[in-house]
């Protein structure tokens, strides 16, 4: 069943984020794709995540589809103007991509080409509306298209530190949904009770919410997040749990699996971000009993 059909049927979807390589050696990407085939419903391909130059999301998405995995590609407005974006979106459709996620992207100063010039012609709302318009057969300049694309379109919710910021994010999500977003990808969940508050507040939005589950990988990463990202709400005892474990990687897999298990019933799926350790996704899902 396709990602869209599962979403509409209210089924729990499992997405895996998989980034493309910097260079043309795609062997790791393809091997990882083969390993997770059958365990996930679709693969999410980032669009120059952190503005690090690499194979594009469209390129990665097509590679996934060639491996028999459904692709969801992210589209970001940082590096392309509305002309390039619309052209890429049309290309995505004819190349078989059926799902898009509109994201704001990180500032170019995070990337590996810091001397570049960010474009930012559109923002999330502008891009969502552009996709809506293309689907109606008209481009942003009002010209008619020879054949209109169609997609399942999602957007992201930014991390929120407190209830006030959560309220702001929900208000913003409302605008994105009005502009065409059909599902929301929520930030990484480490504290399910905190995420449950968001679900409660976002109930009126009426769209599926898919939170991210991040494979922590090491005690160092967990500690970094708990100190530097207050919006992550990463409980201290999680850091201690990884630190005390004799098999730290195994413990991280367990934590991710447990998180997914407790998200069932609360969200309509998960997006697993294994940061290159996609080979562990089947083990995570086993823990999660998905």
């Amino acid at each position: 069943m396709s990602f869209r059909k599962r979403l509409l049927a209210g089924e729990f979807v499992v997405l895996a984020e998989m980034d493309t390589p910097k260079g043309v050696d795609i062997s790791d990407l393809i091997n990882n794709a083969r390993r997770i085939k059958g365990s996930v419903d679709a693969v999410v391909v980032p669009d120059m995540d952190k503005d690090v130059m690499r194979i594009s999301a469209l390129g990665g998405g097509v590679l996934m589809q060639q491996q028999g995995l459904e692709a969801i590609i992210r589209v970001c407005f940082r590096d392309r103007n509305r002309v390039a974006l619309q052209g890429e979106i049309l290309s995505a459709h004819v190349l078989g991509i059926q799902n898009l996620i509109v994201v704001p992207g990180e500032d170019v100063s995070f990337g590996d080409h810091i001397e570049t010039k960010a474009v930012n012609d559109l923002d999330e709302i502008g891009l969502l509306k552009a996709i809506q318009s293309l689907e109606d057969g008209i481009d942003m300049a009002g010209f008619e298209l020879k054949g209109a694309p169609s997609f399942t379109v999602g957007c992201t919710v930014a991390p929120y530190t407190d209830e006030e910021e959560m309220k702001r994010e929900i208000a913003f999500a409302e605008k994105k949904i009005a502009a065409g977003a059909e599902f929301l990808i929520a930030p990484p969940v480490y504290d399910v009770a905190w995420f449950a508050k968001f679900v409660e507040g976002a109930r009126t939005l009426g769209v599926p919410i898919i939170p991210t589950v991040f494979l922590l990988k090491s005690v160092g990463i967990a500690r970094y997040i708990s100190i530097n990202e207050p919006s992550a709400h990463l409980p201290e005892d999680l850091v201690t749990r990884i630190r005390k474990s004799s098999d730290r990687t195994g413990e991280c897999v367990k934590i991710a699996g447990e998180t997914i298990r407790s998200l069932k019933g609360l969200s309509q799926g998960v997006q697993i971000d294994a940061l290159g350790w996609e080979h562990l996704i089947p083990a995570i899902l086993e823990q999660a009993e998905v």
Partner: protein
Amino acid sequence: MITAERKPMEEIMGYVEPCQRILLVGCNECVTVCAAGGRKEVGLLSSALQMAFMKSGKVLQVKELTLERQCDPEYVEELVREIDGVDAVLSMACGCGVQEIARRFRDKPVFPAVNTSFMGASERQGVWAERCQGCGNCVLGLTGGICPIARCSKRLLNGPCGGSTGGKCEISPDVDCAWHLIWERMKALGMEKSYEQVMPARDWRTSRDGGPRKIVREDLAL
């Protein structure tokens, strides 16, 4: 106002090294306020240049002058009396002033002594920050008086990107997140509802993307 900072001495020296006589021209407006190219800075640069020349056994004659407004032809005309006999003009005004001199005196090389930075305001003594990018279609009325184009690193028009931490922009803990400020201000004004208003994709033609801009006021033209 327009803000600027003086260029490094080595770069300025690179321009004036072959000269024996220069005209060093400051401006009494923005660059005076941001202490980059007013009368005081003209004096300081003049002495620094002459000393640097002396150190290498050469002499540089510097005529100092600070115009009321270097971007205004009426004041630039005052240079007519001073410019004969100098090898070059070194301007401490913003890029507009430098170009106005270049336009008026076609046979004289003109060099910039400052880097023109941005349109900004003074946050406190000695600190200036960008406030406006002259987009040509101001939206401050919809954003609580805080500009998302000049002050949000991604020029977002409808809400934050999610990268901010503790009200600071993801690019640096020294930069306020514009959307955090907008949201706080909307709340303070009881205008949260305006936040729900959708700002459509912008028409950037009124901005620099539409090419160099010009304002023509027929009613004022002579």
